[in-house]
């Protein structure tokens, strides 16, 4: 049967500080990767809406691939694949933190790129309507 209250009463003073301490790591990863994902999203949203065909194609390819892959798979690919493809380089700097941030940015950047593109289209349409009304 459930004995949750007793288990909590006995252990919470040990568990809670530890969990809260690692919540800091969670927040740190979330904050860093969010800021970078916004930048990546902006760049690719601009590429996606650019008039240059090559940039558009790159952006579409990136967005489709990054949105089509599960985050777990992206994280695994980012963390395990490059060192094996280019074993000659120095991968010491590529810590688990870096890997996590890069993986989350690849996924998040693609989602944000779509969001930004969508918002910019809505704004352009709203502006066009306003202009036609005032004309």
């Amino acid at each position: 049967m459930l004995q949750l209250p007793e288990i909590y009463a006995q252990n919470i003073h040990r568990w809670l500080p530890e969990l809260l301490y690692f919540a800091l790591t969670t927040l740190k990863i979330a904050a860093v990767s969010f800021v970078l994902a916004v930048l990546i999203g902006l760049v690719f949203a601009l590429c996606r809406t650019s008039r240059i065909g090559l940039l558009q194609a790159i952006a579409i390819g990136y967005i489709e691939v990054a949105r089509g892959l599960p985050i777990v798979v992206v994280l695994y690919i980012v963390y395990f694949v490059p060192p094996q493809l280019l074993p000659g380089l120095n991968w010491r700097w590529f810590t688990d933190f870096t890997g996590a941030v890069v993986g989350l940015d690849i996924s998040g950047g693609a989602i944000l790129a779509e969001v930004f593109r969508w918002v910019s289209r809505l704004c352009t349409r709203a502006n066009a309507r306003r202009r036609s009304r005032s004309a």
Partner: protein
Amino acid sequence: MRFLEVLNQKGWYFLQELLGGWPETVSVAMGSLAFALVFGLFVALVRLSRWRLLRVAAIAYIEFFRGTPALVQIFVIYFGLPDTGLRPSPFQAAILCLGLNGAAYLAEIYRAGIQAIHGGQMEAALSLGMTPAHAMRYIILPQAVRIMLPPITNFSIVLLKDTSIIFSVGVVEMMAKSRNLITETLQSAVILLMLGAIYLCMTIPMARIAARLERAKRAWQ
């Protein structure tokens, strides 16, 4: 190059092994999608109920399942339920978790669809003598389905991708197969890129369908 060599020698074996987990991935995705579609509608209707208490309960459910990571939920279900006497198999726990989690997201999609139908429709149906349940079933929902179809398709893509976390409770699907292969052969680059390609073969066509439904919806509106 080393990569191509490995791909040439072991590629076929890797592909067969990974695809061996494909039925498991798809059946968990389908099972939890079916569960979420039904249960999500129930949650959405409770969310839109006239009674405050029911509404609050539905909001709490939705907030809880959208506010905690699916990975934590599956651990709670798989390792927590045995304390209450139930012993789900990994497969059952996966479907239950993704289904409950998905129902919370789908409830919001359903709600948006139902609320997008003009309130006058409901009033008109009621004034013709229909009961609220009848009006919902024959007037509101058939129209709302057209609005909800694109987001539901997008949701099923997300659900399919989310099945990649269930290896953590021991369901042997594609992700678990890839981990086994990596520990067996250490060829993580070839295996993981192949795994990614398999996921893309499933998700990109689905995204195409979602985009087409979206265009059709806009044309209809």
